[in-house]
């Protein structure tokens, strides 16, 4: 695949090791009741080999962001604006034909529900082999042998036997290992994990998080982890992006954001998590509910629930440097 030079005249100054740059991404959905701006001006970077987490509640736009990067948004959704620079090239505007060689090879995705990511009528090993053969010249036999290796890398016991089994024969944890093996098959430079452990039990979640951490040490793949659980993000990632109402509220190192949050939303979110210290006391809450995406408030999406809202908040605050290496979208910052 030769680089399509015409697709990248707008390539902005590219710092040497940035793998993915999302710039002012807009992903909208046309509905009968109006346009939903599911992602409304999101920007962040993933340096090569780094691990970045996106946390947010339902409707925050975190999954639509990851689907946009994978170019898996289909009608009535569309990328309405912004850039997704992957290895310096804007993939937001690529045709499906030009993007297909990238998806699954350089960029791979692991979904929340492994059952929906696997084809129920083929043995799992064959599916991993197909993923390999889609991007590499390999015989069926060689691909299956590689699948066995991948299975053993992701900790599937008796891999030579397991490759011949059908998805329904495997447990949820094993299925998720299979989809991770499939995603890693072509040694992608970016692995997107969308709620990879949400459907799993606590002890199985611990196994999978352990696996992801271990793989990060062995394979130089950058990770973009999407989760509603900031605890999960804290276990895997160095950096975190906090989203709400289709926008980035705060972005910084996991340490900074979890220990010393500065955006009122992040502060409210972290304080509302039940902890042993809060036992016997009322939890602090964020009043109200997540806004209806069709009726987003003007300006800051968190403004109707924000304890510190001011008049100026009806104008959108830009995500800007807060001086300590992090970025915050708040007029108070």
């Amino acid at each position, binding site marked *: 695949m030769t680089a399509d030079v015409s697709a990248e005249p707008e390539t902005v100054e590219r710092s040497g090791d940035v793998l993915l740059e999302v710039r002012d991404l807009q992903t909208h959905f046309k509905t009968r009741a109006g346009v939903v701006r599911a992602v409304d001006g999101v920007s962040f970077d993933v340096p090569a080999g780094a691990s970045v987490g996106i946390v947010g509640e339902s409707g925050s736009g975190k999954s639509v962001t990851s689907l946009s990067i994978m170019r898996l948004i289909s009608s009535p959704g569309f990328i309405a604006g912004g850039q997704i620079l992957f290895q310096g090239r804007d993939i937001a505007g690529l045709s499906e034909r030009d993007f297909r060689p990238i998806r699954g090879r350089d960029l791979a995705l692991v979904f929340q529900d492994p059952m929906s990511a696997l084809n129920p009528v083929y043995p799992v090993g064959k599916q991993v082999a197909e993923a390999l053969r889609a991007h590499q010249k390999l015989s069926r036999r060689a691909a299956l042998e590689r699948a066995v290796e991948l299975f053993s890398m992701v900790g599937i016991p008796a891999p030579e036997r397991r490759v011949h089994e059908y998805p329904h024969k495997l447990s949820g944890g094993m299925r998720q290992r299979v989809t991770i093996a499939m995603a890693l098959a072509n040694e992608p430079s970016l692995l997107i994990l969308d709620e990879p452990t949400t459907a799993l039990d606590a002890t199985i979640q*611990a196994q999978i998080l352990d696996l992801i951490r271990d793989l990060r040490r062995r394979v130089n793949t950058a990770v973009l982890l999407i989760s509603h659980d900031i605890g999960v993000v804290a276990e895997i990632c160095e950096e975190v992006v906090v989203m709400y109402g289709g926008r980035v509220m705060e972005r910084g190192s996991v340490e900074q954001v979890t220990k010393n949050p500065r955006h009122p939303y992040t502060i409210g979110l972290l304080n509302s998590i039940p902890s042993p210290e809060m036992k016997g006391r009322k939890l602090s809450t964020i009043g109200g509910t*997540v806004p209806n995406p069709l009726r987003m408030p003007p300006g800051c999406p968190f403004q109707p629930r924000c304890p510190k809202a001011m008049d100026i908040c009806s104008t959108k605050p830009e995500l800007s440097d807060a001086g300590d290496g992090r970025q915050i979208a708040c007029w108070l910052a």
Partner: protein
Amino acid sequence: MVDADNQAVTTALDGAEPNGEDDVLLDVRNLKTYYPSRSGLLGRQTAWVRAVDDVSFTIRRGETFGLVGESGCGKSTLGRSVVRLEKAQSGQVIFEGEDVLAKKGRDLKALRQDLQVIFQDPYGSLDPRMKVRDIIAEGLLWQGTAGRAERADRVHDLASLVGLREEHLDRHAHEFSGGQRQRIGIARALALRPKFVLADEPVSALDMSVQSQVLNLLSELQEDFGLTYLFIAHDLSVVEYISDRVGVMYLGKLVEVAKAEDLYADPRMPYTQALLSAIPGHQAPGRRDRIVLGGEVPSPLDPPSGCRFRTRCWKAESLCAEEVPVLREVVPDHWAACHFAEAS
């Protein structure tokens, strides 16, 4: 009735319920809920799924008893069997001196008022065609003692109690967010002034910022009405926060029961140790190092002999395969089903 081989276990457990000095509201004794497993062309019953297998514990008046465990461990089946949403095979559930499982007809109806349920799924558990007003009033209508005016008053009171506004009452459930729906479900559960509420994963479908609102509401209602909760959840942090005492289930068995503080600080059963160490982001000082369990939960159709956890336990010895460990009081008010509970 079903099993001869379990008889020995049952006798071993007799008189060994984790029973405190305090006022007991609900006393569960040797509860078994089995499902027939059918196979073959004729659908013959070939085996039993032992979803709840000889479980005994007590819930004290006014407390929140948290029940944790992973999917398939039987925690929901246990909860549902206690309030008779699920038919137990054998055992007793003594509620204020009477056996819930033996009740029939009118007596059962009377008892159901005292035992109410808040369900996990605020989307599936509310009839989309009914107005909120009618959903909340349904129990009152079913009870049949309150007249129209009294019902209307009561619905208003309940709505304001759970933080719903007047104008919400004439809307349909689908118009509400998850958190608001759960408030409707709570109002419905409280309509008949129950003494005991089974809350089965009441906040797991909710967003973090809304979850804390509902947890606070449940605490307030408990204080105001002296409610007793059986709170089932897979989220270990939520259970630690809300519960007075916590029970841990594994493969149909109750394997540990203790005060929440004691259980989380000093778990005695290896499974509990592994489970608690798996809480993400909780590698705080004082917490144990993560124990990553190998393997998976065995099938409840054919559980391992002896201790059911032994196939994944790093402390297992030959004794564990031979003898079922009895849930016993290891230190005061701390019960564990492990042969080596004293040592750990």
